[in-house]
């Protein structure tokens, strides 16, 4: 299945100032990145700022990207998560985040004024996302929950244990099992698919 230029090809072109390649990268990853920014910040305006900053950073640093830093997807999503967590800390909403109901870790995008990607508009990045969703669907809810708390809320394992009132060892085990399952799902993707 052909999906146009690879992510690394796009970044090479961006490093030479190619705006069209930059637009393609945006179209490919903005929905996934916006999903992360929105889940972390829980604020549409903050999420938009984070996306704008992250893509500006990607433009500036495209020439310095190396595959040793992971896939382009991982590079971008690390950038956006880090900026989103910074935004939450900077604006003092940490306490509000920690007051969230623990059972509800998923964001309701409709309530936040946005909408999930329609399946009929799915792109290659969404194809990969679909494979990961299938793997996630096989995880017990307790494992998904610890991953979400660690990833979107930026909680340490000890903080998660406190939040869920379970032993630290239990949190660690759940996290290990969840990641093992996701790594397995990722391993099933061909190298070209995982880009």
């Amino acid at each position, binding site marked *: 299945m052909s999906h146009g230029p690879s992510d690394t090809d796009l970044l090479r072109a961006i490093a030479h*100032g190619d*705006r069209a390649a*930059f*637009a393609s990268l*945006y*179209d490919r*990853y*903005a*929905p*996934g*990145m*916006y*999903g*992360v920014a929105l*889940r972390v910040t829980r604020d549409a305006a903050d999420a*938009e700022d984070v*996306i*704008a900053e992250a*893509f*500006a950073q990607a433009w*500036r*640093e495209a020439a310095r990207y190396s595959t040793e830093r*992971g*896939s382009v*997807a*991982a590079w971008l*999503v*690390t950038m956006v*998560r*880090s900026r989103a967590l910074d935004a939450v800390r900077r604006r003092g909403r940490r306490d509000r985040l920690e007051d969230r109901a623990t059972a509800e870790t998923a*964001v309701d*995008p409709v309530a936040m004024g*946005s*909408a*999930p*990607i329609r399946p009929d508009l799915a792109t290659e*990045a*969404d194809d*990969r*996302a679909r*494979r*990961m*969703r299938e793997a*996630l669907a096989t995880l017990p809810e307790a494992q998904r929950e610890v*991953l979400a708390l*660690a*990833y979107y809320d930026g909680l*340490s*394992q000890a903080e998660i244990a406190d939040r869920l009132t379970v032993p630290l060892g239990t949190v*660690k085990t759940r*996290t*290990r099992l969840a*990641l*093992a399952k*996701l*790594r*397995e*799902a*990722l*391993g099933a993707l061909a190298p070209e698919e995982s880009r």
Partner: protein
Amino acid sequence: MSAPLPDELMDRVTAWALGELAPSEAAALEAEAREHPALAEVMRETREALAGFALSEPIAPPPALRDRVMAAIPDATATTPRREDATVVPIARRRTAWLPVTLGLGLAASLVLLVQSNTERAHERAAAADALAQLQARLDAREALLARLTDPSTEVITLAATDDAPRIRIVVDRQRKVAVLSAAQLAEPEAGKTYQLWRIVDGAPVPSVTFRPDAQGTVAALEVPVPADGELTALAVTLEPDGGSTTPTLPILFVGAVGTTR
């Protein structure tokens, strides 16, 4: 998928992938990974798995965001001709019309210079923004360090050399379970060796971070985790093989008692 690692190591890999490790801990794990390809592979897989998890629920951003993002990047190539476009070949072929040729070439050269200048300015602006961001990050780090140094809960431990060599200074913040190590004029360890810090906890040495000084013999503000895993009575430094050891190799080069100075 690569072979599973011991649980304790997997927990460190997970913390690394989530950005939870202190810079020194992350650097130590990355150094280990350079020696152990299997560990490096698991680290790569874990980072990619988390990225896959994060990107698994895309949400359509507002359409106006795309315009905002595109408007924020330099537009040199879109608003002015590319360098190769600026070389107007047809004029150059008109050998008999010297004046238009001269003017045309002059105009082309000006366009080339203009485009070159615009592109260079765009790169300079991007580089300046980058440098500013780096300066800001360094300033933030210094401010955080200063806050630690002046916090009443911190104590300063000076590790005196046992052979009158230079000193190492460590600021321990027990409340935040972190210390900051700095040193000057340290001798460069021989190839394959590294300095290693030891925490003396309940009378026994517990391995901590490894470090090497820069070319000037300086170690600047290295963060060191100080878990509350017992009574910390002293800190010591030895020279160990690259990657560090689990038991100290004598002699002890530097040692300092904890809780006796401030």
